[in-house]
Structures are given as structure tokens and as C-alpha cells.
């Protein structure tokens, strides 16, 4: 009996809550695009030299490139990897999300890679976003990363898993 009486009250309560949520969502709608822009600006964009024949990489293929398991683009141009120097947020992000390594593991990985004669050189170290942009523009075959809002139209942004940094579901946000 008690339960029978309580049910209509609960239904009214749930309906009221749903109404509140909908109204709140409607009120916040104008801010959604701003939130998306904020998310995009904090995303890390993968950038390549403009002539590089790649538009999209899966996250696994991107990892292969960053690990130097893949060292050539399809046109047989050697991939030149540019990595930010330690103590930059962009480097920390990439180590965490793409390499899934600590700074020490990253260092050991590349020393091992060079020592095994699997790569002729390690990644080139860059010290600023400006330097990254300058070198990606200058070096054919180069690939690097930077904050999405730092990207200029002199470089090409590569889609990751089919998505650009501004799109929902972009893997490097």
C-alpha cells in the first residue's frame, strides 16, 4: 500500500527533475560552442609538413610513427620526428597519451632504439612552439605536435582517428 501511494509522487518528482535538466541545458546551449572551443584549444594537434601525403592517422599508426616503428611516409620520404624538450606541457601530454611512458622510460626507449641500430638518429628536440612551426614548415617529411590554437596555416593538421582537434571525440584532448 505504501509503495502504491509513493509511486505517483516519485513519477512527478522525476518529471520535474527532467524538466529542470532540459531547461538548464537550453540555458547553457549558447555556451556549448565556447566549451568546444576551449576543449579544442587545449587539444594537441598533430602537424606535418604541408607536402606530406597524409591526412588521417589512426592512434595506433600515430604511435608507430612516434615510436619510429614506421620511419617512412608512403612516398618513401623519411619521417623526421620533432619532439618538444622536457618540461613542456605538450611533451608531457604526448608522453602520457601516445607513448604511455614516463620521462625516464622515454629516454631509455630512444637510447635502446639507437643502440639496437633500429634508427639512425633520435627525435629532433625543439624548444618552443615557434621553433616547432618553423622546422615543420622547413623540413619535408617532418611531424610534430602543438596546442591546437597555436597551429598556423603553414602546416597541415592531421586527423587522428578521423577527427580534427576541434571535433568532439578527438583522441588527443
Amino acid at each position, binding site marked *: 500500500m505504501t509503495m502504491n501511494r509513493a509511486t505517483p509522487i516519485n513519477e512527478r518528482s522525476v518529471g520535474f527533475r527532467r524538466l529542470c535538466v532540459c531547461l538548464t541545458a537550453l540555458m547553457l546551449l549558447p555556451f556549448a560552442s565556447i566549451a568546444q572551443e576551449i576543449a579544442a584549444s587545449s587539444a594537441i594537434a598533430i602537424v606535418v609538413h604541408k607536402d606530406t601525403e597524409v591526412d588521417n592517422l589512426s592512434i*595506433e*599508426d600515430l*604511435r*608507430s610513427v612516434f615510436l619510429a*616503428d*614506421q*620511419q*617512412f611516409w608512403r612516398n*618513401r620520404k*623519411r619521417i*623526421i620526428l*620533432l619532439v618538444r624538450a622536457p618540461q613542456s606541457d605538450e611533451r608531457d601530454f604526448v608522453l602520457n597519451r601516445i607513448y*604511455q611512458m*614516463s*620521462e*625516464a*622510460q622515454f*629516454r*631509455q626507449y*630512444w*637510447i*635502446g632504439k*639507437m*643502440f*639496437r*641500430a633500429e634508427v*639512425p*638518429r*633520435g627525435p*629532433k*628536440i*625543439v624548444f618552443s612552439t615557434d621553433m616547432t612551426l*618553423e*622546422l615543420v614548415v*622547413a*623540413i*619535408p*617529411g*617532418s611531424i610534430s605536435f602543438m596546442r591546437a590554437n597555436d597551429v598556423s596555416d603553414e602546416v597541415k593538421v592531421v586527423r587522428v582517428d578521423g577527427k580534427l582537434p576541434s571535433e568532439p571525440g578527438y583522441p588527443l584532448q
Partner: protein
Amino acid sequence: MRFSALTYAVILLCSSIGLVSVSRGQSYEVTSTGDPTAPEFGVIGFGEISYISKDASNQDGFVIGQAVAHLRASLGNSLSVFGEFTATGKDSEYSFEVERMIVKYDFSDSFKLSAGRYHTPIGYWNSAFHHGSWLQTTTSRPEMVKFGSKLVPIHFVGVLLEGNIPVTNLGLVYRAGYGNGRHANIARAGDAGDINGDKAWMLQFNSRPKKFYGLEFGIGYYNDEVELETDPNVKESTFSAHAAWTKESPEIIIEYLHSNHESVLDSSDEGDVNAWYAQFAYRLKGDHDDWKPYLRFENQEIDLTDPLLGSEGLDHEAGILGVRWDFNPWAALKAEYRNEEFNNGPRENNFRLQVSFVLAKL
């Protein structure tokens, strides 16, 4: 002689440090000019010092391990040269060795051709780790692939074709080698030429599945005819298999090797070798991530009828427990307890303390 050899070892390490500085400059210069085809040189140095205590002998003491210099040069878009040189402390002198010397041309990811002296691509350890003990978790290599091992031809001189097989997401990699087999001293490679007409050949397939980042497994085959000074030649065929989880929390490496040795004159004169090891390690997380405890079990058994190794007394069993402490980004301290049995003799307890370091810039 001793002085000059010691001097050489010091120079080897000092030159590593010096050239690392040069490498820094050149690396930045190349980066600044933006010319990726400009020649680029680099040096990595490794060293180690150990304290070894054995309950089976009274020869406890400090051991200067190998001083290692690794030189590499990138000469344009596709050509590169690698060299690995060691100076090893012996009883009365240092011995100098050209461990690896490779000239390599990368046509593409699928086709990389090289010639020179290699660590034979058999199993995992011999290809993944070389002479710098800083790179490996433990103080030493497993017995089956230790330097100077007769069980496995550690070095090989010839040509190697390797590359990716880009058909699936399996991350397949192949290596195919052809060259001189073992020397008459079977622990050495035929550096100055093959001592018989039969060349060694080997084939290895590894997989690093893209969906399981960190996993590697593979199989390999090695074939040779070994010339012995007094006995008839022996056909050698070795099968290897390995699986490794290379992320450090945990790190798992398991490797198995089976060899068959058969006299060319009498096929009934043959014997087998079975060897394996399993290594487990775990890098702690959070504030203690510079600590990495580890454990390894090893076993190798050789048939007494084996015409190549049966009389060598190479049976071995070991249980190893240790911890690695990366107290500095470029140096590690390892403490290791070992319980071993050599050639079915009494079990020995050993303790090793080792500091190893790398001289490199990244």
C-alpha cells in the same frame, strides 16, 4: 700493455663524453638549419662497476665490467653506420673488441639492407639488449645468451635484410640473415671469413600487435654447419621463440631455444639443447617509480650425446631475485641474489651489487 689498454678504456669513455658534447652541438645545428640529410654523428657510452660475492669461492671483490662506446652516423636520408666497441677487464689486461659494425641502407620500412657484424637475431635478448647493462633490468644477461656463450652463436658476420610486413595490424617484422657461421672457436663468429663453405642463414618473424601496445612475440630459425678442428663437422639448427611484455609495470620476458646438433658423417651422432628463461619485473608506481624489483628463472640442458656441446658441461639452472634502483636518470644501482647450479654440481649462492650508467643525450 696493461697501462696502454687501461688508458684505452679511459679514452674510450672520455671520448664518449666528449663526443656526446659534439653530438649535442651537431644535433642542434642540424635542427637549426632544418636540413635532415646533413650528416649527423652521435655517441653513446655505457659502463658498469660490480661487487660480486660468491659463497663457492673466496674471490669476492669489485669487477670493472665493460666500457662500451656506440657510434652512429646518419649519412643522408637512407645510409647509416653503427659501431659498438668494448673494453673488458681481464685478469692481466683489457681486451678490446669490435662487437658490432654495421653499414645500413634503408630503402623503405619494408626493405632495410645492411652488412657487417651483428648480434645474431636469435630470440629476444640478443637483439633487444647489447653490451650496455644499464639498458637491461638485471645485472647480467641470461646464461643461454651470455657473451662468450657456446650455446648460441652470439655474433654473426654477413648481410641482413629486415623490415616491416605491412599487411595487418599485427605489426609484423622480418629479419633474414646470411653470412659466416661460427669460428673454429665456436664461441666466436667468423670475423675473418667463413672457415668452411657452408654459410649460416637465419630467419626471424616478430609481431608487435598495434592493438596491444607493449606486446612482442616472435619465432626464429638459425642454420649452419660448424667446422670443428678435430671432430667431423656438425650441422646446427636452432629454433627460438619468445614473448615479451615490454611495458615496465609489469615487464615479462620469456624465451625458449631448442637446438639440434648432428654429425655430418653419422646422423645417429646427434643431440639436443633445450634452454629457456622467464623474467618478471615490476616498476613501482607513484613516488617509488625509480624502484623495479625483478625475478628470473633460467634453465638449460644439453644432451651428453650432443656432438657439439655434449662434452662442454653447460647445464645450468638459476633463480635470481633482485631490485633495480634508478637513482639518477643516467645511472642505476642493482642488487641481485643468485642461486645457481652449474653442470649438475652443488648449488651456489651469489650476491651482486652493480652500478651501471649511460652517457647519452636525448
